[in-house]
């Protein structure tokens, strides 16, 4: 089945992302290589040591500095990237809105993990949910193949819209699992991402530009409205780039994936790695004649409200599964699904909220079957339930 321009390999998610970066060869990668870092940067550093990449790897003294150095390099016109996880992302949180505010096309590969305290660095979406409102595009991967593909798509998307993008894979479940994946030909990837077209650069001394100017009460608001316009453009750009990516890879990505949704009555909405587990459950229950389906969200920011609302408009019972907790509120994905449905349909489906997999807790197929069973039994109310 091997296509002419692809190689089949067995790689972990972390390695697969590093492999995508090797093919892209960014100019600069600024990293802070201690726990809770990902395997992406140690793999990439080894590639550098082996002479496979020309990227300037800048080792800094903190995650805050990692993003700051990436900002500097990107503003100077370089293609600059980094990777982080968990507490590391929170440590750089101060700089994340700077990236989006400056309109810098930085890509940060994320292996999504829990936040302290208590100490735990295992998989969940707590870290990326904590920074979801900072103007970064967020794309979730289900399998190792997606993590590789998302990296390439993310870079092209970031440079097309001049906004930062965070391709996200579930920590450990995707980042540390070895799977079979298809690697595109180096030249194909190179051609696909092309060269960065720099509109303004700090180092363009003929045309000096100010980055991050002071914007007071009379202009700051407009800057933020402009930023939101960029985010809204991201959806169309993502669709277009996914279309182009399909042409080189044969793999099709959309803002969200639907699985047996057409005639379903009970549906789970989920995001990330556990979507794979849920698909197996859907197959199993379908064999038993149950009308169940799945919607797995891929593009989380900007959130495709209208499109998802439309896709779910005929469903009568929906459970939203979040791998994050939002203290004192409904969990993040659930909130967005409620908004999607409220604005797109006059029908009101029965909606349930579940939280699963915090701190790396295993989510088994039987847990997901239980959710479908709850939906079938009408065990649906406005209380958040925990799949512990």
């Amino acid at each position, binding site marked *: *089945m091997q296509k002419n321009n692809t190689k*089949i*390999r*067995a790689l972990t998610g972390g390695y697969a992302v590093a492999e995508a970066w090797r093919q892209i060869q960014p100019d600069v990668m600024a990293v802070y290589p201690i726990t809770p870092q990902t395997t992406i940067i140690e793999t990439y550093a080894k590639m550098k040591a082996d002479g496979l990449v020309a990227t300037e790897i800048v080792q800094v003294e903190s995650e805050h500095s990692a993003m700051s150095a990436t900002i500097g390099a990107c503003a100077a016109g370089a293609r600059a990237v980094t990777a982080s996880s968990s507490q590391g992302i929170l440590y750089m949180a101060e700089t994340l809105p700077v990236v989006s505010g400056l309109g810098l096309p930085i890509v940060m590969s994320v292996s999504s993990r829990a936040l302290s305290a208590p100490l735990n660095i*295992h*998989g969940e979406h707590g870290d990326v949910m904590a920074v979801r409102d900072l103007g970064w595009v967020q794309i979730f991967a*289900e*399998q190792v193949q997606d993590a590789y593909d998302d990296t390439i798509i993310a870079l092209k998307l970031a440079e097309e819209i001049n906004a930062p993008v965070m391709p996200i894979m*579930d920590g*450990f*479940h*995707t980042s*540390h*699992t*070895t*799977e*079979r994946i298809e690697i595109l030909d180096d030249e194909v990837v190179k051609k696909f991402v092309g060269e960065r077209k720099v509109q303004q650069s700090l180092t363009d001394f003929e045309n000096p530009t100010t980055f991050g100017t002071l914007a007071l009460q009379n202009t700051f608001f407009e800057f933020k409205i402009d930023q939101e316009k960029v985010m809204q453009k991201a959806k169309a750009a993502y669709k277009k780039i996914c279309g182009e990516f399909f042409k080189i890879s044969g793999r099709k990505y959309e803002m969200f994936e639907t699985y047996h949704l057409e005639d379903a009555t009970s549906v789970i909405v989920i995001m990330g*790695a*556990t979507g*794979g*587990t849920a*698909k*197996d459950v859907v197959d199993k229950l379908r064999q038993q004649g149950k009308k169940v389906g799945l919607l797995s969200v891929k593009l989380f920011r900007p959130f495709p409200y209208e499109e998802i609302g439309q896709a779910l408009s005929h469903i009568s019972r929906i459970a939203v599964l979040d791998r994050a907790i939002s203290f004192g509120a409904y969990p993040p994905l659930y909130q967005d699904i409620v908004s999607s449905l409220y604005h797109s349909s006059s029908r009101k489906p029965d909606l349930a909220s579940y939280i699963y997999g915090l701190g*790396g807790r*295993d*989510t*088994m*197929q039987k847990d997901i079957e239980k959710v479908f069973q709850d939906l079938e039994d009408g065990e649906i109310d406005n209380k958040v339930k925990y799949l512990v």
Partner: protein
Amino acid sequence: MKLNKDTFEIIFFARGGQGAKTASELVAHGAVAEGKFVKAFPFFGPERSGAPTKMFLRISGKKLRTQEPVTDPDAVVVMDETVIGSQDVSKNLDQHEVLIINSKREGEEIRKDVPHFKGKIYAVDANGIASRITGASNPNMVLVGQLIKVTEVISLESAAEVFRGVFLEKIGKDLTEKNIQAMEAGYDEL
């Protein structure tokens, strides 16, 4: 695959440092080289040298999606029999499935330690065989050989090919070939 299942599932029990990760990934890489789909992942606990570890491996002819750990294996490989006291190594292993154990003892003697298991026990003195061939007592390659013989999840040739590809540059020709011999010895030990 011998047991002719859609998806073949294996758990490796070991102690940190024995090479369970290398063993499971070697089989995973071999399976991918043969055109199969895999998921190989560790039990995500703290990794300390000497602590009990677990590796999960799924191999299938079709795309694998589920992310849950393996709970109902088709084969179990125990690299260190002292983990049996704290780990339920034969859990959900039925009489048609196999338990491969690194041990100097006879299979029937080991059975006393896993009283609920009714299937076949394959006991291999992997440390002894490895020491004799490679000069080091890492049991993993011998056990991979035995696993391949018993389950036929991949061919011995694929495993040897992958081993060469990964290790030739790292450990040199002599040690690479000795490790492959250890694998072959594990394969022949039945």
